[in-house]
């Protein structure tokens, strides 16, 4: 058993355990804590796959951003000391159904990958370029450069072998800017709607 496998099992167990904790916990703040454990372990799995950008983004957005807001919301709106959520049996059945469906979907996806082909690349020592799915060890440590180039429309991995008439990919910078301006407008609108209607006297 390799060290990667041991680490993988640690992270995978805590991801699953955290997810179970979210379902089984009664108090909202504890659910948030188990969600931190689960999402953090998934980020650890991303780190192990050398997808460090995805891992850091997972931490900064979900754990550092969303969950802080969640706990902040609980603290501001709670009427009692510890807010509890009682899950009804019907909700549990519905949740279990959705979970099992998702499990089958993931299992189908996992089975569709040619793991033997990927295993040759990972363990065979000869770093052949693996087309399609699978783990690609030649791309280690170079996650941010391809991402930045793809944002600007340069896709060396796709464009080099592509036929001439297919043209170059257009890049994601423009959609990215549109989305960010859209979010800015939403934020300004939200703060306009939420502001105090009566002008309060400045305290400073």
């Amino acid at each position, binding site marked *: 058993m390799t060290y990667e496998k041991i680490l993988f099992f640690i992270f995978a167990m805590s991801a699953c355990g955290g997810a179970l904790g979210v379902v089984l916990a009664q108090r909202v703040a504890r659910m948030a804590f188990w969600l931190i454990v689960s999402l953090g372990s998934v980020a650890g799995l991303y780190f192990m796959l050398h997808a460090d950008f995805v891992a850091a983004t997972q*931490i900064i957005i979900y754990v550092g951003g969303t969950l802080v807001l969640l706990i902040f919301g609980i*603290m501001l709106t709670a009427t009692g000391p510890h807010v509890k959520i009682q899950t009804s049996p019907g909700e549990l059945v519905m949740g279990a159904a959705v979970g099992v469906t998702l499990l089958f979907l993931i299992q189908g996806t996992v089975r569709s990958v040619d793991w033997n082909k990927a295993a040759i690349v990972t363990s065979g020592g000869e770093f052949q370029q693996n087309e399609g799915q699978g783990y690609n060890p030649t791309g280690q440590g170079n996650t941010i450069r391809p991402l930045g180039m793809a944002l600007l429309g340069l896709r060396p991995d796709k464009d080099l072998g592509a036929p001439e008439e297919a043209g170059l990919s257009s890049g994601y910078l423009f959609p990215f800017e549109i989305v960010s301006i859209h979010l800015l407008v939403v934020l300004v609108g939200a703060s306009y709607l939420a502001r105090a209607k009566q002008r309060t006297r400045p305290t*400073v």
Partner: protein
Amino acid sequence: MNFFPIATNIVDYLQDSVGLTNGLAMVLAALIHGSLLVGIFMGTPVVWIWGERKIAGRIQDRLGPTRVGGRFGWLQSVADGIKLIQKEDLVPPAADSMLYRMAPYMVCVAAFGTMMVLPFGETWVAVASDIGLYVLVAILSLEVIGIILAGYSSGSKWSLFGGMREAAQMVSYEIPLSLCAIIPITVAGSLNLVEITQLQSGWANNWLIFHDPFVLITFFVYFTVATASCKRAPFDLAEAESELVGGFHTEYSGMRWSFFFMGEYAAMFVVCAVAAILFLGGWNSGIAPLDAALLEMRALSADGSFQPMSYLSNAIGMGILISKGWALVFVQVWVRWTLPRLRIDQVMITCLKYLIPMSCFLFLGTICFPLVKFYFSAQWEPVMENGKQVEINGEKQWDLIDSNTSIWAPKADKWAKPNISAPAEDVETSQLILPNSTPIDDGELADVDRQVAGGTR
């Protein structure tokens, strides 16, 4: 991302010279390096809790600790630690016991996790990630969750207020922190903390803080925001012992209480070390001959073998980085005992009304500065005067004839030399990008060079 580049060195050493099996050597190497990191993580609080008490004493015209361990009371932190371990571990009945127990660990884990990507030397970095700074900021932002959970789960009003203040403060101060961290990134052109430091070798004027006036101001803004993000005075509203008893840690005692302070001091060191890496040259000493000698020593183990001289060089680099970080920690301590605490509304106004606009302006200024600098420092020459073309190197520069304006262009060979050169890893790319690169013999590349230079002009 390169996992444990030094560990492979020491693994080879343990296998070949000591004669251990591969598995045992790897476990031993991981233990050695892990305990080194834990040593830095624990050493900073031990030194600085004593240091803070000494400095506070001097500032307040006292002596500070004098008894424990002889002359300067230098064993005070150890005595404190032993005392805290002996204390009872209390959980108030109103508290959410699981979260109450977990919160101090979260603070510690977040502060310790950042050391995973913090480079102490050129090869002394656990994970040399391409996006080191991004990972570091992401992991450091986890610390706030521990504080908020501690405040919420204590079941006490003081703690809840402390936690809410912390949440409000952190959510606001993360914005200028990231903006200020982006500014040296745009100058260096890399998120990799190792690459950023390598760019700053040579004399101290190569440090990014001296790159242009905007970065100079950014350093002070960053330092203010970093102080606030470690909830140090004058921004320690989450603690605020004169109003909130102890803030988020009111109910804590013993080791769990001390974990918060370990995390706080370690986080102080981490943000100061990041400031040293981003602005103050990291492990470079700022003295060019010394840096060159250290680089030579480091190059001995370029093939991945174990070399004692290379280790020594890395150790010296780590010493330089830690001294720079500790110097900045000293400033934070000095500020804490000099300035009074702000009110919570003043803290928020400082961030939202002053620090965010300031960092936006500095970001814009840093982007525009190279253009302005180029405009004034390039040697300009007329290419067309009153519609008459001027020949340069036997070539007519413009095809416009019917214009009475004069056009000036910078001399092609006198471009402003950038203070920071491109990373030397890719020679061909740097020749293509740098306008003042010497013409190369390869005809095709030279053509591309001319095209790129023309496009930039």
